[in-house]
């Protein structure tokens, strides 16, 4: 069963819509599974597209120079938590 919070579900929809993951539904994403490589199997170009979608929806820019990038994208839960802490809209 899905145990996603409303924000996690919203971010899940953003991922599925932005990246056209036609064989994935947002509610089926496991909150703690990795988004890259295993799990959803996203790549670095997907990260760029996702960063753009996140800046449009939540009004802040992602950065990788703080070494947190791997953690931010480690799971849907981590990404949603990062968004919750940085969003300005």
């Amino acid at each position, binding site marked *: 069963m899905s145990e996603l919070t409303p924000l996690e579900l919203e971010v899940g929809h953003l991922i599925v819509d932005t990246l056209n993951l036609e064989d994935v539904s947002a509610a089926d994403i496991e909150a703690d599974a990795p988004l890259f490589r295993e799990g959803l*199997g996203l790549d670095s170009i997907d990260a*760029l597209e996702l960063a753009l979608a996140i*800046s449009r929806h939540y009004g802040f820019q992602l950065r990788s120079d703080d070494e947190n990038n791997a953690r931010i994208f480690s799971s849907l839960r981590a990404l949603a938590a990062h968004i919750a802490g940085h969003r300005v809209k």
Partner: protein
Amino acid sequence: MRDEALLPLTSHGEQEIIAWHGGRAVTTAEFLAQAAALAAALPGAGQAVNLCEDRYLFLLAFTALLMRGQANLLPPNRAPRVVEEVVAAYPGSYCLVDRPHGALAVQQFTVAVPAGQGEGAPIRAIPEDQLAAIIFTSGSTGAPRPHHKYWGELVRGMERGRERFVLHALQGGTLVATVPPQHMYGLEFTILFPLLNGLTLHGGRPFYPEDLRRALADVPGPRVLVTTPVHLRACVAAGLAWPPVALILCATAPLSAAAAAEAEAAFGCPVQEIYGCTETGAIATRRTVAGPRWQPYGGVRLHCNDGVCRAEADFLRGAVPLNDVIELHADGFVLLGRDSDMVNIAGKRASLGDLTHRLLDIPGVEDAALIVQDEGNERGGRLCAVVVAPQLTEQAILDALRPGLDAVFMPRPLYRVARLPRNESGKLPRAELLALLEQLRRGDGVQ
């Protein structure tokens, strides 16, 4: 015996700043001393894979290997199986990394900025016949194909680039790049270009638009940005306030004239596209907004016969066949198409034959086909796989494929089917495959 001709390692003067690393200026004298100290510490071998991601550490490792007479091995991607294949093909070789990779079953040497100096004066020149790098492309039969790059040819190619971009006007400027240095474009334009043309290297590798904006803002101008269509588009779309940039170089995939115009407006400078391949390095450029014709570098001669085009130049050994079909005109050339086995996704080139082989090599996979979808978008499409493997799940197939593949080539989606629509001669007509995909996408349940 003839005298061995030596060519300088760098055109920078001793006290000039050669790089910015971690917010600190590094002079050429410091850099050469660090490279010499690293060279002295390296294991003995004929070659080593240079996997460093930090651009300054890559430059240090590259130079230390040159000083030691070891060739830089540059694999087509970082997938562990691919790196292991390259190491296995050169017995005794090892990997230079900026942090240890647990998944990599080869000898690793972690590169850090050396604290002390090597003994004696650092080497400042390299024999022109020395093998500097072996760059690999994915071959159609499975094994990565090596391309040998000698120091003299790399240096002469850079001289042609310097002429083309009128670089004396940018002396003292800084080069910032988003592309990795482990392929020919990255090596030429983010390592050799600053090393041999008097530009200072930004030692990091900014990824997100905001990273790049900060990197550009942190360095003195004139600024040169080396990037790809994917990154350029992301930066333009981010709508940030960019510091002044003097020149943008773009390559690895075609850039549309519309995207180039938007980038010129956002950054306030010309966007020059580079044409070349691993075999030749850069051989032509165009300002994308000015039209589709490419202008060859000075001294480059192109010939086409029976659909095969070749390039000759003073920085190439012999006539090199190109992967593209081109049409020659008095004022440049246009690209007509490319060898159909080669795909270019997110700026990375691979052979469909090789990728299909990797699928077929998985125990339990009986038949498989790959097709590129949405080729028109900036990333250059996405691979989709149709596989016959009655005993395996989709996830099991993807898990088996992952260690041997760059992430951009991972098929999405991957469908399992009972059989592929092969014709009597065993061929797989593209139209049939597309029809099958359409059916699968609608969920008609072929399996």
